[in-house]
Structure formats: C-alpha cells, structure tokens
C-alpha cells in the first residue's frame, strides 16, 4: 500500500534531501553531453580507436558476464538452497571484491595469474592474462561477479522450494527442474544482476590497467587521453561510452520487461 502524499514538513524534508542526491548523481552525466558539444561527439564516434575500444570493453564485459552466468548461478543456487559448513565464509569471500580497492585487486590478480606457476599453467592452454583480452576479462569478472551472484542468490531464495519439489513428482530430474522452474522464476533478479555485472565491468579501470594497458578498454583510453592531452580530448570519449552503455542497458531492460 502506498501512502497518500501530504504536503507536510516531513515530506518537504524528504524531497529536499532527495533532490540534493539526484543533483549530484545526474548533473555530471548531463554535463558530459551538454558540455562536450555535438561536433566533438560526432568526431569521437567516427574515431576508430574510440569505437574499437568501446566494442572491446562491451565484448569482454559480456564474456565475463556469460562466464559468471555458467559458473556463478550454480554457486548462487547452492548458497540459496542448502546449509553447509563454511557457507558464511563462502558468502564473505564472494563479497570481498566489492570492498577492496580495485588497484589492490589488480595487484592480487597480477600476483596470481601473472608470471607465476598458475599463470604458466594457463599458458599451456594458450591463455595469458597480462596484456590480453583474457586479462581484461578476469579483472572485470573478479570485481563485478558478486553483483550477479548475490542477485541470483536472492532470486533463487524467492523461488518456493515446493515448486521444485512438485516438478520432481511430475517427472522432472533435478537438472530439468533447475532450468524449467528455478531459473525462470528467478529470472528477474538474474537479469538485473547480469546487467549490473555487465555495466559494472564496463567501468572497470583500476584492476584492468594493472593487468592490461593495451589493448585499451574505454576507461583506460579515457585516462590515457586525459593524462596525455587533457580534459577536452577525454570528455567526448567519456560521453560516448556513457551514451552507448545507457542505450544497451535500456534495450536489454526493455526486452527483459517484455518477457516478464
């Protein structure tokens, strides 16, 4: 039930405080587009280096998201459905990347997957993490996977276990129940989590720059242009990636809502 709006001092205080935070959240974004000017935006869109950097960022973030859908959903389901020894510890581990500085995460990843035994092991399969798209992917995944895993965990918790039990009595194996009942009924949270993870991956900078400077993701390109040429060269790139991200985000949200 929603409360009826009344023009009292409490509501006025709520609105004033809300307007302050909305100002800080929205004005810098709007300023990106208004301040840059249409000529510079069009030039930037035509700039091959910018476009390939945006496509690379979106593509690798998508890879990371797909990888976590395959591996993170089973983990989220396990946590949501079962009680087991070390469950709280496991949940804490999943949340750690959200809390640590991203550059620290980059150092941790470099120490693990760089010139180390584990890095050497992956090299056997042709997978190298320093200076490659795999490196970008692992940095994005490390820092943004918790958004998808936690959202999916909440989604699975909302699915009544009785639905899964009834489906078993109707002939479905546990695998089929997972795909026919558990995932479809948790899809809203899963889609939200996947979008959060993907968009969070787009903005990943601190960890990516330590593992991979080239090929340049858009955040690295913006930093590179800002440090080499100043604000006027980096701002249009920022505006374009914001625009592209918002567009993709809206399209996916629209499609997800249509199927809801």
């Amino acid at each position, binding site marked *: 039930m929603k409360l009826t709006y009344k023009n009292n001092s409490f509501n006025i205080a709520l609105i004033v405080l809300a307007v302050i935070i909305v100002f800080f959240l929205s004005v810098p974004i709007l300023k990106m587009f208004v301040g840059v000017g249409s000529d510079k935006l069009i030039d930037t869109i035509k700039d091959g280096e910018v476009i390939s950097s945006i496509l690379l960022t979106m593509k690798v973030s998508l890879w990371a998201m797909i990888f976590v859908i395959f591996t993170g959903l089973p983990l989220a389901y396990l946590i949501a459905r079962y009680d087991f020894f070390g469950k709280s510890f496991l949940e804490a581990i999943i949340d750690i990347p959200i809390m640590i500085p991203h550059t620290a995460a980059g150092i941790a990843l470099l120490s693990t997957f760089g010139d180390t035994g584990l890095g050497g092991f992956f090299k056997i399969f042709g997978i190298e993490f320093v200076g490659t798209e795999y490196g970008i992917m692992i940095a994005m995944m490390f820092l943004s996977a918790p958004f998808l895993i936690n959202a999916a965990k909440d989604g699975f918790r909302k699915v009544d276990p*009785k639905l899964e039990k*009834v489906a078993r009595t109707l002939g479905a194996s546990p695998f089929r129940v997972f795909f026919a009942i558990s995932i479809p*009924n948790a899809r809203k949270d899963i889609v939200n989590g996947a979008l959060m993870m993907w968009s969070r991956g787009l903005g990943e900078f601190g960890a990516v720059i330590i593992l991979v400077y080239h090929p340049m993701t858009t955040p690295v390109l913006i930093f590179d242009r800002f440090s080499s040429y100043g604000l006027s060269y980096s701002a249009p790139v920022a505006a374009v990636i914001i625009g592209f991200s918002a567009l993709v985000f809206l399209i996916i949200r629209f499609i997800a809502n249509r199927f809801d």
Partner: protein
Amino acid sequence: MSYLSIKNLSNSVAGFSLENICLDIEKGEYFVLLGQSGSGKTRLLEAIAGLDSSSGSIHYKEDEISEKNPEHRDIGFVYQDFALFPNLNVEENIVFSGRYREIEDAQEHFKDIVDFLELKDLLDRCIKDLSGGEKQRVALARALYSKPKILLLDEPLSAIDPTFRNAIMKKLKEIHRRYDLTTIHVTHNFREASYLADKIAVIMNGKIEQIGSPDEVLNHPKTIEIAKFLGFKNIFPASLINDKNKSKYFSVDPNVIRIVKEQNVCCDYIFEGVVEECMGITDHFKLFVKVDENHFFIKIPKREYENCLSNSKHSIRIGFDEKDVSYI
C-alpha cells in the same frame, strides 16, 4: 502385502523427527492422515514422495520404491498452497509432466480432466490471476495429468473459502474414484476426515498414534490426547461412573447431558453440581457445572429454557445415559 506399505519410516530434520512410521494402504483406499499443525503430516507425505530423505522402506505393489527418485515413483502431489508454477500459464502447468513423461492418450486425457474440473475458460490465464478455488483445480489437474497411481493431498481444503469446501470435498471423492487412485489426504480437520476417509491415521509429534476406520478413530480415541485433538469434551476419570471396564477415562457429548428437573430418575448417571457460569449463545446456552473437582460443559437449547439457569452459583442435577458414554 498391501498396495502401499510403509515400514519403519523415520527421518529427522531441524530438531523434528518422524519416528518409525508404519502404514498399510490398500488399492483404491482414501486414507486420511489426521494431525495438528506441526505434527509431521507434510513431512511424512514428502518422505513418501521421495522429496525428503528418510530411513525405512516403502513398498508399492511389492516393489521397493524407497531408493527411487521422486520422478520415478508414480506419485502425484498437491500442496496446501498449490505450488503452481508462476512462469507458466494454466495449460502449461497442467501438461508440465508431458515434457518429461509419455502420457498415454494425452489429448483425450487432458480434455477429460479439463472438462471434469471445469477449467476450459482458464487455460490461457496467468497463475497470479486465479482465485484460491481455481488454483486448487489447476493443481489437481496438473497432478492427475501425470496419471499417478497414488495421490498425496496436503491440506487441500485449508486455503479454500469455507462456502466451497463441501462441494470440493465431494469433488475429491469423485476424482479418487474416477481416476482409480489411492489417495493419502492430510488434514487437521476431523469433519473433513469423517466425510472422506476409508481409513484414518492420527499422527502426533511425528508418531502414528492410532489407525482405524473413521468410526473407530473418531468415536473411540485410544488416548486422552487424541480425544482432546478430536474435540471430545467432558473427559473425566472412569471412576466417576464406577466404570467396570479397563478404560481410564470416559467422555460425554455436551449436547446429550440433561438437567434433571424432577426427583424421578431419568438417566443412567446423575450428578449433583454447582453452576459456575452460564453463557447465552445464539440458539443455546453453554453451562459450566462443577461436580466435585470435575467441570462439566453442557449445551442446552434455548427453546427448553427461557433464561440462563443462573449466573449465581446454585446446585443442580445433571445426567446422561450409558449409551452416550465414550470410553478412552
């Protein structure tokens, strides 16, 4: 061996245990499992369906099915809140089992169920748009479509508007016969049990306390706890009526206890007591009479007495006949 034979079924989860449950259920029997909330009824149904791990054995037509997965047990399950799949519409819910099992004469069977349960106009509807009664019919249809041999019903009438309960109870009986089922119906409502059951088992704290015909269980409870659960009133030590048989307690229905007005003997047992309280309720009075240390509860129709006997304490004589006494 019985059609469905459960031997020493036990399980323990979160501090609650089912202890050595033994049940023999015959083919075509409507078996009602009667128990209070938290007595382990749903847990027992889930264990029979293989949804809850347990020890002991379950034999179905002499085959041991305890080790089989739920999807291979030929058991239909209808939960109290129906557990319909929100991601599927009504028709998709009903035919769900068809995705994983071969249903013989599927189209005819589907049409028969839809006609019988009057679901034709609901087939395209979303689950969230259904009423409680409609949801129940869809849940029954979904279970029946899979052609189970055993149907497990977990409090199927508790979420239904009381005005429709009698009609639905009738329908449940029809379903049971029409689809040649063996049904286990869980409830806490003994009226439901007396109408539906061929056999009743009373479950308390995870143990089966009594099994028998509806008359046996509902009129002759084995223990004082079962009697109280079944709504028996006026439960007193048998010594009060000089009982010669071995029962420790007896009970007498508040409706058959009479107030003895004249001196002549009208009843087999007559007691003198003190009226403690008299409450006027629509068409009858509730009278509470203390006889020695025992408190009798009596219902007297208002047509027999114009006013409540008295709200002040005074002596009266009450009586009842031997034929109205139930020994426990």
